[in-house]
């Protein structure tokens, strides 16, 4: 039993690239560890893109199956996370296109907050917690109202913490367009928050 836990802790210390190469050479636990590492960020990103919790689980599963099927084609020149986000980005965009979801209708589809996020909270005081959760709720509403192209960039930058270069790789956009659109997206968000009468951060 101790040898199993030792092997597991060993796997947890491996880098993403090492996990990919051991998964290719037959290490069953390596792919599982990659899924464990990235499932939450991918679900969160896809959920915010599609605004449907169950659908985001399905799409995340699709993404990881695609990753598994093309692991042998993964090039170590890229960060594994960038490659993974590119696949997730394509899956989410494909889904939006297939179902031709109107980005403007995302909010009206859920007037009662049916898809309200269950988010982690680590605030010490209930008052501050409430303030923060109010702000996050507003941000969620505003993000849903952004056009897909803007929402994507805002999420990749501020939720996934990707650099401009990584965003350019994930979305396939030129670096200048990423820079420009991100600025416009933030401006639009600020405008929408003012429209909603937000008077504090």
């Amino acid at each position, binding site marked *: 039993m101790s040898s199993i836990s030792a092997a597991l802790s060993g796997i947890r210390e491996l880098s993403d690239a090492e996990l990919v190469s051991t*998964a*290719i050479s*037959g290490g*069953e636990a390596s*792919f*599982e560890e990659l*899924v*464990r590492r990235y*499932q*939450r*960020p991918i*679900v*969160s990103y896809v*959920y*915010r893109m599609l605004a449907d*919790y169950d659908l985001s*689980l399905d799409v*995340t*599963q699709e993404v*990881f*199956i695609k990753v*598994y*099927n093309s*692991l*042998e084609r993964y090039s170590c020149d890229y960060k594994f996370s960038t490659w993974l986000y590119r696949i997730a980005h394509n899956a989410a965009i494909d889904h939006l296109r297939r179902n031709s979801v109107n980005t403007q209708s995302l909010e009206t589809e859920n007037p009662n907050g049916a898809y309200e*996020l*269950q*988010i*982690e*909270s680590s605030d010490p005081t209930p008052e501050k917690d409430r303030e923060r959760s109010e*702000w*996050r709720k507003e*941000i969620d509403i505003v993000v849903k109202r952004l056009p897909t192209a803007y929402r994507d960039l*805002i*999420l990749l*930058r*501020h*939720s996934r*913490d990707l*650099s*401009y270069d990584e965003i350019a790789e994930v979305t396939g956009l030129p670096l200048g367009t990423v*820079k*420009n659109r*991100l*600025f416009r997206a*933030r*401006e639009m*968000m*600020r405008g929408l*928050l*003012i429209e909603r009468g*937000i*008077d*504090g*951060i």
Partner: protein
Amino acid sequence: MLDTLTRDEEHPSDCPSVEIAAYIDGELTADAETEFESHLSACRVCADELNIQKQFVNALNVSFDDIHEIPGDFTKRIVTHAESGVSGLRKAKERYNALFVCLGLFLFALFTLGASAPGAFATFFDVFMRVAAVLSFAGHLFYDISLGVIVIMRSIGGQPEFFSVAALIVVPIAILLAFRISHTRASREQGEYSESASSF
């Protein structure tokens, strides 16, 4: 705090607004950063805009927590689905097993077909046997000739003077024979030509 979110109406159009966003994100090149900072020290409007944007970006960075609720068996479900797919990573042993099973099934199908219809493969086996016989004959012939040549070459190789004597005898004979053959062919062609000429 509303005013912190409101854009300054007097913001000049030639000020680098996009650069402010990239500067906050730490995404400007060293040169562009120095240039922007020198502009910033001279432009009050940009300095204010920078503060507003920075405040907003800081608030935005802590606004997106990861989803907490993920089904307990989600990882296992993904891994099982991925590994049960037809494509994707397959272990070498698994591939060999598949090949072995396919081969076994093929042979089984062949035997059962042969047993149920004895004449079904008659033509195939007939052709196969003929090809095998021709190949076997050609193989034997090649083997015998090679063996003979090797034996002769070995005996010649052991006695160099014999080789030169043999060459002295064989080469003139070969030349004479070649000359004779070409001569008879030429005379025959000439005869044919005279025959055809006389027929006219």
